[in-house]
């Protein structure tokens, strides 16, 4: 069973000619089949965690370890991490001019699966996945993220999640900027992948709203660059009622 283990992770970023520590010792274990919600106020380091795990060059790991099934993730390049089974659904996916969605998806699936998917079954697979996300077939001919609305970008991220079938999926604020209908469609997509039991999900969010659609096994409150409290789904209800003030003002954050 696939397991992502994060131990004492410290991460810095260069900003305004100064080195700033954003993550200050994160410990977390995510197993295949589990869903963990990471909740926290703006600036608590949630997205830094997501991008550090995916290997974004902006972030420097200064301490700690990350392993996937015992393999050292931090030693891997960005593409190696993806091929090892890590997937990051991005909050702000970038435009890639000149590359069509269909070409992108096929190139990506070929890289992840280690061989080109058979054309006939692939076309069917993509078509079904797009239908499930209420995406028009013409979408495949557009350039990656170019001129996409906020909702289209997020659907496109979840489409990739469904097609690439990672071991561990990190969803970075996938719910932000979505109206209720889009949130439902996107959540259904995430749930289809979760129901296979083959993915461990790290759901990063600012709001409790998405947890009505995607039920987490565990909820972690992120504050001051580390996990301040962990609990079951009831912790989300407490946050809904009381907000993050207890964590931001209570001296938990450094």
């Amino acid at each position, binding site marked *: 069973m696939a397991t992502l283990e994060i131990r004492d992770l410290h991460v810095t970023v260069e900003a305004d000619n100064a080195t700033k520590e954003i993550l200050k010792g994160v410990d977390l274990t995510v197993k295949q089949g589990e869903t963990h919600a990471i909740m926290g106020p703006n600036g608590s380091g949630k997205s830094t965690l997501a991008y550090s795990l*995916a290997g974004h060059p902006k972030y420097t790991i200064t301490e700690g370890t990350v392993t996937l099934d015992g393999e050292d993730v931090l030693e891997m390049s960005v*593409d190696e991490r993806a*091929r090892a089974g890590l997937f990051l659904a*991005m909050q702000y996916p970038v435009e890639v001019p000149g590359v069509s969605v269909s070409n992108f998806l096929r*190139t990506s699936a070929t890289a992840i699966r280690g061989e080109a998917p058979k054309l006939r079954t692939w076309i069917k697979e993509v078509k079904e996945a797009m239908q499930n996300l209420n995406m028009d077939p013409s979408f495949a001919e557009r350039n990656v993220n170019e001129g996409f609305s906020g909702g289209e970008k997020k659907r496109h991220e979840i489409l990739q999640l469904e097609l690439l079938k990672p071991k561990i999926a990190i969803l970075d604020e996938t719910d932000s900027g979505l109206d209720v209908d889009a949130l439902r469609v996107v959540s259904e997509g995430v749930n289809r992948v979760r129901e296979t039991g083959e993915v461990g999900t790290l759901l990063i969010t600012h709001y409790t709203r998405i947890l009505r659609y995607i039920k987490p096994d565990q909820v972690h409150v992120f504050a001051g660059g580390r996990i301040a409290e962990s609990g079951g789904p009831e912790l989300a209800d407490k946050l809904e009622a009381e907000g993050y003030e207890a964590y931001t003002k209570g001296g938990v954050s450094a």
Partner: protein
Amino acid sequence: MAEAQNIPVGSTTAGQIAVAAESTVATRMSAPPSFDVADFPVPHGREEEWRFTPLERLRGLHDGTAVATGTGVKVDVQAPEGVTVETVGRDDARIGKAGTPVDRIAAQAFSAFEKAGVITVPKETVLTEPIRVAVHGEGGIAYGHQVVELGAFAEAVVVIDHTGDAVLAANVDYVLGDGAKLTVISVQDWDDKAVHVGQHNALIGRDATFKSFVVTFGGDLVRLHPRVAYAGPGGEAELFGLYFTDAGQHQEHRLLVDHNTPHCKSNVAYKGALQGEDAHAVWIGDVLIEAKAEGTDTYEMNRNLVLTDGARVDSVPNLEIETGEIVGAGHASATGRFDDEQLFYLMARGIPADEARRLVVRGFFAELVQQIGVDDIEERLLVKIDEELEASV
């Protein structure tokens, strides 16, 4: 209605902004068109038409010091049956019919060439195989002139393939009879040190169709003037270009479409990729719609993809409209960057870095490459694009 409208737009990267001067196509040239080099002053580099070009790298083509050597370029023409291929003297009446040199080097080439090549496709002759003109640089200095003439309703594809090393100034005339269809693919696949300057004039007959691909990969300095004018109504011109500018290369394409006749169409689309320190691409797109050219339909576009830091693009579309009685006129210019975030996004989906780059650049050029219609050239271009990308890693 007769008032000239001038719409300058600038688009560059690396913090450089180029904006066309408030002038017209005619007034911003330093001298009126002429076949005689003596009619043009030696450029000093600040003139509108020279300001982007590094004169010191022209190897004397611009100031009269470049003297033709015996071994300049070797030209080999392969043509299917029915085509006449000739080498003629300077006084042949068919030379220079499609246009007049607009700058000193084009005039220098016209004043200095000794023999011209003339390829004629007789009227109503429809070729099924391309005419291939191989221009191979032998390391010397050369001046040349080539004429391609299609009779009425003739159809042909011409590939002009430049390879090797040379300092070459050469002009080309394309003369299309009524209803003729000509596709020209000019490939500049020079060695690293080559210098190539020239003016390509097309004169499009009534209801004739001219399609041109200018493909520039090689050379130290390439500066071409593809120009189009119409000899009768109903003519159509499609001017496509692809360039891949590497570290230290200067590749300049200066286009003019002169809508001098009513009811003609033109469509210009040039795309370039740049990489490496001091890679410099220049694109000037002048479209002139004269007062008498009612019913004109024109669009021009230039897109640049900057793959690394240190490259520079100067892109200047310029549309002058002297009549409002037209179908359409538009232009667009955009320069974008293949940046680290795009690379991260593609790699985060398992795609290795070199493949990510290739995906983006191939995708960028694909729409133009696919329209060439000559298989071996299309394949060679894709291979070339891959080679350029591999060299950069």
